[in-house]
């Protein structure tokens, strides 16, 4: 297993958000967390990344216990986090945004260099001298993924990437996810757009009120009308 999450409990101040959440992500998989707004998807991702460390439980990444580690250390171990609200540094150019995400090769050769990234997202190449703050929503989404990708992560946490994007851009995004998967990047996705999520994932977890309510392959979930109706309002 590349990522093992074992019984984590996470709090915001006094309010208990995650209850004994456990999940696994295997090398090369695309796994999706489904659930409505406020169910605990983002908190799960933040807990894994160390941004909101869990009070109890463990997060094991590539065999290493990373619970309670500072986010930048987790990132340097090869985990990438793409936040829901994108967080493009508005004063920096597109290229400078990428530079921030670039960790330097540190001995090993980078799989993702600027040329490959720009080849992958040609639109960003055209915009490379524009300030991040002036990009459209879809362009920002590309940049935020590119910025994480250039740090050469083995696992990317993608938090609600389709939110607020036009259908055509969502479609393009799906293409990127498929390509990243082909390149061997493991992806943990969180989504509200069930149709989109199921189309691009191998396995799914359903989070509700901070509990994992369901887990299984996408094919199984597709057939389970009861679960879909109960938790996903589909």
């Amino acid at each position, binding site marked *: 297993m590349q990522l093992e999450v074992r019984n984590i409990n996470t709090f915001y101040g006094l309010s208990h958000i995650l209850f004994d959440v456990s999940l696994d992500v295997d090398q090369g998989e695309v796994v999706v967390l489904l659930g409505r707004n406020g169910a605990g998807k983002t908190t799960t991702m933040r807990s894994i*990344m160390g*941004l909101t460390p869990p009070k109890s439980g463990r997060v094991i990444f590539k065999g290493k216990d990373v619970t309670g580690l*500072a*986010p*930048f250390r987790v*990132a*340097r171990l090869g985990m*990438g*986090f793409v*936040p829901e609200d994108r*967080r493009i*540094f*508005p*004063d*920096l150019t597109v290229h*400078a*945004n990428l*530079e*921030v*995400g670039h*960790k330097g090769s540190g001995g090993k050769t980078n799989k993702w260099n600027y040329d490959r990234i720009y080849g992958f997202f040609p639109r960003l190449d055209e915009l490379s001298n524009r300030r991040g703050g002036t990009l459209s929503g879809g362009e920002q989404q590309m940049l935020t993924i590119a*910025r*994480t990708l250039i*740090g050469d992560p083995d696992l990317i946490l993608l938090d609600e990437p389709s939110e607020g994007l036009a259908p055509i851009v969502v479609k393009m995004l799906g293409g990127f996810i498929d390509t990243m998967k082909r390149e061997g990047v493991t992806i943990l996705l969180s989504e509200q757009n069930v149709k989109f999520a199921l189309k691009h994932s191998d396995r799914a977890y359903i989070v509700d009120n901070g509990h994992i309510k369901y887990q299984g392959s996408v094919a199984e979930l597709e057939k389970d009308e009861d679960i879909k109706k109960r938790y996903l309002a589909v």
Partner: protein
Amino acid sequence: MTIQLFIFMLVNGLSHGMLLFIIASGLTLVFGVLRVINFAHGSLYMIGAFLAYSLSTLLTTGTLQSFLLSLLLVPPAVALVGFVLEVLLFRRVYREEHLLQLLLTYALVLILDDVVRVIWGGDPRNVARPEIFAGSVDLFGMALPTYNVFVLLVGPVIALGMWLLLYRTRSGNLIRAAVWYPETLGALGVNVSWVMTSTFMLGCWLAGVGGVLMASLANIDLGIGMEKIIESFAVVVIGGLGSIGGALLGSLIIGVGITVLQLPFGRWALVFPYAVMALVLILRPWGLFGKPER
């Protein structure tokens, strides 16, 4: 008032403005990244000035070597004090509310100012100018103090240096990124605490540079920290919190304003920074170069 006297005052005002810029830019830089208004910034500047004084008593005072040596050694020493303060204290309050942050820095003012008094005493001191700056230069038939002209020129050099650092280096990118989303920066593998510590140290280094320059510009005493922090406040408010360009403009307005207005108004000119500060806050609270927060 003759035109010559006016130019004389103007040059004087500009050199004071540039000195103020060096100090205020440190304050605004620290605010931009750390979101803390550091009241103790003036005290750090004062420590720089007194360190320059002490160093000059150890060396042959009035020589260029001694001046350059203190310019080389004192600012890093102040930055080191900043390092200790950031790691031990500031770090703990970034998530707290404004009031507690301000009180923390105010507590530091009380402590640092008193430490300076205990170590150096309350008498005014000054450091002899290195001899090549001791004289005056002729400009439009007027004798302008060379040292003031020198300070006037250091300002733009520092401004250019800051601009290059912030806009042409990776470190600068990291600092400007940390202004917006420190957390995201961390998730990208950047040690944000270190970015913050370094920024704070850079701010303190600037205060130290200001202190060294000030020590040879005029008398230094226990009041200079307070005087400059209030002026820097005015500068930062005028320019917009966190804006370096704004700090440059604000410094020139305050520096020139105080100096030039002294001719017709005497000591009443000291009211100027407060009046401008109040006026800007009333008319355009986010400053001339800043942006409204919503």
